[in-house]
């Protein structure tokens, strides 16, 4: 069974000499100061300095890097924009970090076939910006879309506020080029909607850089909806807001987006962007519908009616594009908004069956009291993806640890009610131990077997995604010692 690579310890400058055979000097970063920006992703409690940062510009260079690393038994960690929230792009201190940032070309937009072919370092939003002139856009829109890369989106199967109707990354990618651990170039998928054989698109999407490095991507583009409006409503309790969400779905409406925020998150967002959110509400719903103008008006009326039936304390419908953008801006900047009111925050990413929202939020409240840390909740209500933001102060000894312990409890709770420890941020280095909560040994062994099929030496992103058998044993003995 593979573990992470047992890599020899190399000297950085000696290693750089080897890489100069395949890369230019300006593509190899050796000195500590220049490497510093790469030591963590957007979860900076995990930090490590790689031996080297490499900045390839072609598929062939990535192929050569993987071949050399394979020969040297050197860990390879791919990095997109570094906006990940699970320490997925955390460097390995005995390995190299491969930045895809220079592979940032939009190779082709085929408006007729509605396909964009792009390099992995292209920013999510840049695809939409390039497609707009044809009346098309790329649907998955993570809140980090101005910065995050499509390669990172593939690794995490990223979603966005519109994925309830338009799907996740896995629903919007047609194909990709991947360089495998042993330096083979694979063409996965194509321009059609499926290919024969095992669906490697499905396998690679969400695999957190553990199975190969994505060097090119083909995504679907969709026609920009003719018309869209967002209905915003305040509620006196999270429970009634949750019931209103279920009622909208049960009425046969699939909103383009359906988001919930709790009182704390509402306050923070309103302070930050002044979107006109109702400060007195305990829960806020943002429900967007799109389609033809007539259709949208029909749905908006229906939704307003449902919200009132379920006790909405306020209700507002966007009148124009500007207002719609403003209402979303509060939601999309919820993380940084919460970041302003607390020295540090820790973002969780559990998913739950939607009907459990009341139970889960109540339990989160109790945990918050018990651990003495405040929690703001932002929720992709349509698809059951909860982002509790735990507020803490890292300069207070022990608080980070308390925040992590509290986060762990929340994840266990999600699994208990039939959900998952991560909806879209990935396991990374962060949630490794909670994989044991969600999967049993045989299931984990099947995951290793898959990893082993693609990367027998375990050189790709070691220590992420799937805990090794040894780590499982360690976690179990820690848990046992806590219990006794």
């Amino acid at each position, binding site marked *: 069974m593979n573990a992470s690579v047992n890599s020899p310890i190399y000297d950085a400058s000696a290693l750089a000499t080897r890489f100069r055979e395949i890369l230019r000097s300006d593509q190899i970063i050796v000195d500590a100061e220049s490497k510093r920006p790469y030591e963590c992703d957007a979860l900076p409690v995990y930090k490590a300095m790689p031996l080297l940062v490499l900045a390839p510009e072609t598929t062939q260079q990535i192929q050569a890097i993987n071949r050399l690393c394979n020969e040297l038994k050197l860990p390879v960690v791919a990095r997109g924009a570094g906006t990940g929230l699970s320490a997925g792009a955390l460097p390995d201190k005995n390995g190299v970090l491969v930045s895809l940032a220079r592979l940032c070309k939009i190779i082709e937009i*085929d408006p007729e*076939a*509605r396909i964009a072919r792009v390099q992995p370092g292209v920013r999510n939003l840049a695809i939409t910006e390039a497609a707009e002139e044809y009346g098309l856009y790329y649907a998955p829109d993570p809140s980090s879309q101005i910065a995050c890369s499509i390669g990172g989106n593939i690794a995490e*199967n990223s979603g966005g506020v519109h*994925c309830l109707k338009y799907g996740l990354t*896995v629903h919007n990618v047609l194909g990709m080029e991947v360089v495998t651990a042993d330096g*083979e*170039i*694979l*063409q996965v998928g*194509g321009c*059609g*909607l*499926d*290919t*024969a*054989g*095992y*669906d490697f698109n*499905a*396998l690679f999407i*969400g*695999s957190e850089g553990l199975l190969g490095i994505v060097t090119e991507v083909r995504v679907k583009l969709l026609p*920009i*909806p003719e018309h869209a409006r967002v209905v915003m409503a305040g509620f006196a309790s999270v429970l009634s807001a949750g019931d209103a969400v279920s*009622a909208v*779905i*049960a009425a*046969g409406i*699939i909103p383009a987006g359906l988001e919930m925020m709790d009182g704390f998150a509402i306050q923070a967002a309103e302070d930050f962007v002044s979107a006109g959110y109702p400060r007195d509400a305990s829960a806020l719903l943002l429900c967007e519908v799109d*389609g*033809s103008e*007539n*259709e949208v008006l*029909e*749905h908006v009326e229906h939704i307003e009616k449902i919200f009132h039936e379920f006790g909405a304390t306020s209700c507002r419908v966007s009148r124009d594009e500007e207002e719609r953008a403003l209402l979303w801006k509060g939601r999309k900047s919820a993380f940084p908004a919460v970041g302003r009111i607390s020295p540090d925050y820790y973002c969780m990413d559990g*998913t739950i*069956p*939607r009907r459990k929202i009341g139970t889960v939020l109540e339990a989160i409240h109790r945990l918050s009291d018990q651990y003495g840390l405040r929690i703001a909740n932002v929720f*992709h209500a349509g*698809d*059951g*993806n909860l982002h509790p933001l735990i507020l803490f102060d890292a300069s207070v000894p022990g608080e980070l640890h308390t925040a992590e312990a509290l986060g762990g409890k929340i994840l266990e709770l999600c699994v208990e009610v*039939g*959900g998952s420890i*991560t*909806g879209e*941020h990935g396991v990374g280095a962060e949630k490794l131990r909670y*994989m044991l909560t*969600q999967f049993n040994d*045989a*299931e984990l062994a*099947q*995951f290793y*077997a*898959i990893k*082993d*099929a*693609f990367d027998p030496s375990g050189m790709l992103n070691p220590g992420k*995604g799937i805990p090794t058998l040894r780590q499982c044993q360690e976690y179990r003995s820690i848990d046992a010692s806590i219990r006794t």
Partner: protein
Amino acid sequence: MGDIADELEATVRAAAASGKKLSIVAGGSKSFVGRNVSGERLDVSGHCGILDYQPAELVLTVRAGTKLTEIAQCLEERQQMLPFEPPDFDGKATIGGTLACDMSGPARPWRGSVRDVTLGVTLINGRGQRLRFGGQVLKNVAGYDVSRLQAGAMGTLGVMTEITLRLLPTPAATATVFCEMDSRAAIKRMNELARLPLPISGAAWLGGSLYLRLEGAERAVTGALGKVGPEFQPGDESIWMRIREQSLTFFEGNASLWRFSVASNAGHRIEDQSWLFDWGGAQRWLRGEFEMKYLESLANDLGGQVSLYRHGDRAGEVFHTQAPAMRNLQLRLKNSFDPHGILNAGRMYHGI
């Protein structure tokens, strides 16, 4: 209703120990797909029944041997549906077989495939272990996406026992229209229309006519009818069922049936042959006897693949040839689930 998961697990475990090959069968409606396999018949049709249905969550969990007709009936009561419009082949098709063969109907380009709506799968791998992947929630990136990997795997990675799917509400209104045109004009028109924000849920070219289906809210459909063009006339709605079930005369007889999965706007080649286009041009059916190599080169030119879908020589390869690096990894993946090579061995490719 029937739960035979324990028996299935025991059978697979025994086969893993003895190396006896198993041929997995449920409704038997798709025995024509893939390559011929030998092996002892493992009948999973007894493992059936709806386990959980949450209309407000749009989520359904069923045993893999459940008939599609039973599922459709249950969903109809709540005006919901399986979004991917699968063929039920005279009521014989099961959800497990549908996922294993990745079968979706005319709505697929707009509403997604069976793979797209699969949220979770429980399966028995070739070691005889029952494993659960994915779940009941729409979003889940913990571990590899083993659930969606089952789509099109033709049972070669595991015997599926439970499947969780995402549903959609049934559209309130539907309209079918058609217009006579040649294949080239049809390809052009289908792609032009797909670029517009219209509630299209079907676009097919057959018998010299382009058929379109519009579905959605009442006002959306009425509005869209005004936009597709005045040359379109009201058409027969049952055409979609007959395309889906392959019950049109086009599909009759024993001539080889080839399936092209290509770029929707790819040009039309060997036009003088017998063709039917579905999925807005992305799925193209061809009848007749051809060299596989010749059609593969055609499909490559069109940005996609071809398979010998039905009839013809089913002892040879029937799916598009894979590049050596791809084939190698597909074999290794098969081996990671089924190291003894007992599950539907060779159904997909020789050795897989």
